């Protein structure tokens, strides 16, 4: 999702982190903290939990930077996947203990500053938002429930009162359409 130059720099930063260069980790943190923290706040709906997980994510980056393989994907994808995976794990473990408390509070946080949000209204963000708005609601809804709420396909089927096979088909169709829409809008998405 970054310009080509930033992509190259990200890869270089990860290589430097793999050599235990803490300045490189600081640079990577400064570059991605806002978007990853925004994602974690959206998943966990708690700044405190999100900060805790953000710290875990960058410690994991520090320990596992050598595992990053640029042939398999971009640093952005690797970082978002790490953050989301940790965020969903934390949410599921919290939900198992506090399901009732959390169930009614899954709206986006209101603490997000407009200034920061404005800073992230990049062209690519707009493209993603536009592409998502073009998905049929029946395809978009299961994607959102899986991505932000960490629900499995069975849980989504139960929540929406739809057959499991239908949910699987709609999720797959939604992702395929999203990929097509993004690919036609911008080459920088790399699909």
């Amino acid at each position: 999702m970054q310009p080509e130059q930033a992509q190259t720099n990200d890869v270089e930063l990860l290589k430097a982190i793999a050599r235990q260069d803490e300045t490189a980790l600081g640079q990577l943190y400064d570059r991605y903290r806002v978007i990853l923290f925004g994602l974690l706040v959206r998943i966990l709906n708690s700044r405190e939990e999100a900060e805790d997980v953000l710290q875990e994510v960058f410690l994991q980056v520090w320990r596992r930077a050598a595992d990053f393989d640029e042939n398999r994907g971009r640093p952005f994808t690797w970082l978002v996947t790490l953050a989301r995976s940790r965020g969903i794990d934390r949410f599921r473990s919290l939900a198992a203990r506090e399901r009732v408390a959390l169930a009614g509070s899954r709206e986006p946080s209101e603490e997000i500053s407009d200034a920061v949000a404005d800073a992230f209204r990049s062209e690519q963000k707009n493209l993603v938002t536009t592409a998502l708005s073009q998905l049929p609601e029946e395809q978009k809804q299961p994607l959102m429930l899986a991505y932000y709420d960490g629900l499995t396909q069975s849980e989504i089927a139960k929540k929406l009162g739809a057959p499991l096979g239908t949910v699987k088909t709609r999720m797959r169709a939604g992702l395929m359409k999203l990929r097509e829409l993004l690919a036609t809008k911008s080459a920088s998405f790399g699909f």
Partner: protein
Amino acid sequence: MDFEASKKVMSHEDYKQMIPGHALSALDAAEDRMLAHHLVECSECRKEFDQWQETVAVLALDVAGAEPSPQIRERIITQIRAEKSAGQTNVISFVPSQRSVWSSLGSLGAIAAAVLFAALILYALILWRENRTFRTEIATLKTEIQTSQVQLDRKTKLLAMIEKPGVHFAELKGMPMAPTATAKVMYDASGHAMIVTKGLPAAPADKEYQLWYIVPGKKPMPGKTFSPDSHGEGMMEDQVPAEAMTSAVFAVTLERKGGASSPEGSMYLSSGS
């Protein structure tokens, strides 16, 4: 689903269909394990999985960014410095040495043992992760069972009330504080009442909803307090005051925890026109 049995009947195309769900971390545990095993063996599916992960990752851009506390950066740097210094104390200097054939064979044995050891550690790690997943699933199911039991108890009580002869019903509508909220009050000839609410916003920690019995010309009579669940659904049993048995209007207000003797908070529901 039996893992080995399922694995035998799954085709390559079946696995491919599961990949987008896997990229979204939305597969159920059994499917997730099956696909993970397949991905180890199938480079084509691994490549496709990587591509789907790229698509899934861009969804993060739809979220508004947020600024974490500056202390988080400091905490991360402090932690990695601690790890670095701990690692440095364990550094062993490398001294090249002449090796005989026998020592090389010994080294091969050591490498094989190390590989075996690493495989055992990996296997233990997989078992531990699966165990952790199952524990989480069990905890989730227990919570769901408890929630279902509460709902079943409520419905049983409601059914018993509805089946009583001569039960009175009153419908409460949402006021401007909660326009979509609704409630029903039922009470029998003895004054035993039940109120069932839907769509009420969650009450703040220091407040509760309170039922009121309003008879024209008299001071509102307080009923019991209650708190709806996270879905806005609530149920409470109470005793209708004798004066309110024939011509009461019912109302619900948000009051301090424990309730008030006369209404002080905003009105959320009312049976009045």
